[in-house]
């Protein structure tokens, strides 16, 4: 057994740490309430982050590596939807209060399926081969960085110029008391993220395959010794993470006021995504959701005092502060 700093802590230190955590939580809530409009925006941003972060954490749970290509898988989802909206589906914008039209409702599931297939393909063609050769973690990380660059390169090759937009038309924001203004699209983004999160929760807790995913994440050797085909569990996990990344990519575009797509949009989100995963407790999907909300709100609220370009730095600062008090993240297991 290792003697960790935690086991050597005296009761006084533990009490002080609890007090500090409570103070930090109060500061966070007060700051969020003082800029309630920004905090609400943060929840919307958090919803998009959550879908990406949950995918990263699921893959980490069973593969024990952080997938650097996840951001670019999101980008791919956005561009698949763009292709469908512009070239395949009928033209329509302004569905109800939203800037987009009904074809987006078809494009989202198709994008999810496409990125799920991409993710499964990545595992079969690259990661499985590395596993069979017992490649070390650095090799696997570099491979995932390589895939990230390859996906982005593919997107740039086909869609780089001119600047692309989802078909959209302008819509009024909803005005609420306390200076809160909500873009209808943001409500859609949050609603869709919530539906997907609930679906994932039901999958993980109610289905045999979902429980096998959690079991494999807990202890892969024991899962195999229980007769679970862990290779199949890995493919399922990649598929689900990919589907969530596809949805996150599409939602990221309509989250943006101009509905603009950029080949780097997913990659640029990696820092807050990883921060959310770590803050929540690596490998825990519920933690990733919580972490994404915390990071999303912190990033948006910080713009009241800091330039928006500092948002990623804020995300990492929040992560460092959380780790100082809870080294395994908010919902991370103790040992």
């Amino acid at each position, binding site marked *: 057994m290792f003697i960790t700093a935690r086991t050597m802590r005296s009761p006084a230190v533990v009490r002080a740490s609890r007090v500090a955590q409570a103070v930090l939580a109060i500061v966070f809530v007060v700051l969020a309430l003082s800029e309630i409009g920004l905090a609400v925006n943060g929840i919307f941003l958090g919803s998009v982050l959550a879908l990406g972060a949950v995918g990263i954490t699921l893959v980490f749970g069973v593969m024990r590596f952080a997938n650097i290509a996840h951001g670019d898988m999101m980008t791919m989802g956005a561009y698949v939807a763009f292709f469908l909206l512009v070239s395949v589906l009928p033209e329509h914008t302004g569905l109800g209060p939203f800037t987009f039209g009904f074809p987006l409702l078809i494009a989202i599931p198709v994008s999810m399926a496409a990125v799920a297939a991409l993710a499964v393909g990545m595992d079969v063609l690259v990661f499985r081969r590395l596993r069979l050769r017992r490649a070390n973690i650095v090799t696997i990380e570099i491979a995932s960085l390589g895939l990230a660059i390859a996906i982005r390169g593919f997107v740039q090759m086909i869609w780089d110029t001119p600047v692309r937009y989802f078909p959209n038309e302008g819509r009024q924001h909803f005005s609420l008391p306390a200076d809160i203004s909500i873009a209808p699209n943001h409500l859609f983004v949050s609603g869709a993220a919530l539906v997907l999160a609930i679906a994932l929760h039901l999958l993980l807790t109610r289905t*045999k395959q979902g*429980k*096998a995913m*959690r*079991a494999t*994440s*807990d*202890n892969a*050797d*024991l*899962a*195999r*010794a*229980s*007769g*679970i*085909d*862990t290779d199949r569990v890995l493919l399922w996990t990649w598929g689900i993470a990919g589907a969530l990344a596809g949805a996150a990519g599409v939602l990221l575009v309509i989250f943006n006021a101009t509905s603009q797509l950029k080949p780097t949009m997913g990659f640029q989100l990696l820092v807050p995504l990883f921060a959310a995963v770590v803050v929540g407790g690596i490998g825990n999907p519920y933690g990733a959701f919580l972490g994404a909300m915390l990071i999303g709100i912190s990033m948006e609220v910080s713009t009241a005092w800091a330039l928006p370009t500092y948002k990623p730095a804020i995300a990492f600062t929040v992560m460092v502060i959380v780790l100082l008090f809870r080294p395994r993240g908010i919902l991370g*297991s103790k040992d």
Partner: protein
Amino acid sequence: MPLLDATGVRAGYGDTEILHGVDMRVDAGEIVTIIGPNGSGKSTMMKSIVGIVQASAGEISFDGRRIEALRADRRIPLGLCYVPQTENVFPTLTITENLEMGGFLRNDKLDGRIREMFELFPDLAEKRNAKAAALSGGQRQMMAVARALMLEPKLLLLDEPTAGLSPLLMGTVFQMIQNINATGVAILMVEHNAKKALAISHRGYVLAMGEVRMENTGPELAGDPQVGRLYLGNE
């Protein structure tokens, strides 16, 4: 015909060979104990049988079928289940979910078998919705054994089932092993409490340096002065 028949098994980790040609057999309905000093390859032998470690040479037959080339998840359905020494439960899953995972390969409704397990281990029934991480050492061991029994195996492999338990709980676990055996399940276990384990075993093996040094009935081995010198530390 023995239920499990291993001959000339060689296995190890990476380039390090731990087992240098081990012969071992378990007949139907037997309790067989493997004893030996630390590092003698007891756990590696268990893992080779169950397929978590692949044997590099030798033959392993189970119930008349060669299994040494099969993956672990293909060996389990044949009727052998394994309880590792540590990390033998899924900590973030509830007790019920752990049992469901134990019965992953069953196609029927699991409820009946889960109820039987709860009757066999009433402590677990009380905590059925608790996470396995919240169990005490003894309960965790019960949980691990119950998980392995979900598939109604013909052979149960137990790696140090009493490790870390109080003497009182040890007695309970050995009693449980006898009870399970009485239902017709053969048991192959690795155990540090050699004397107690051999006392309830039909046969035993002494493993040292990756080779079988002795093989005899349980009581004979327990009383053998050479075993005392080799393994039990008696002068």
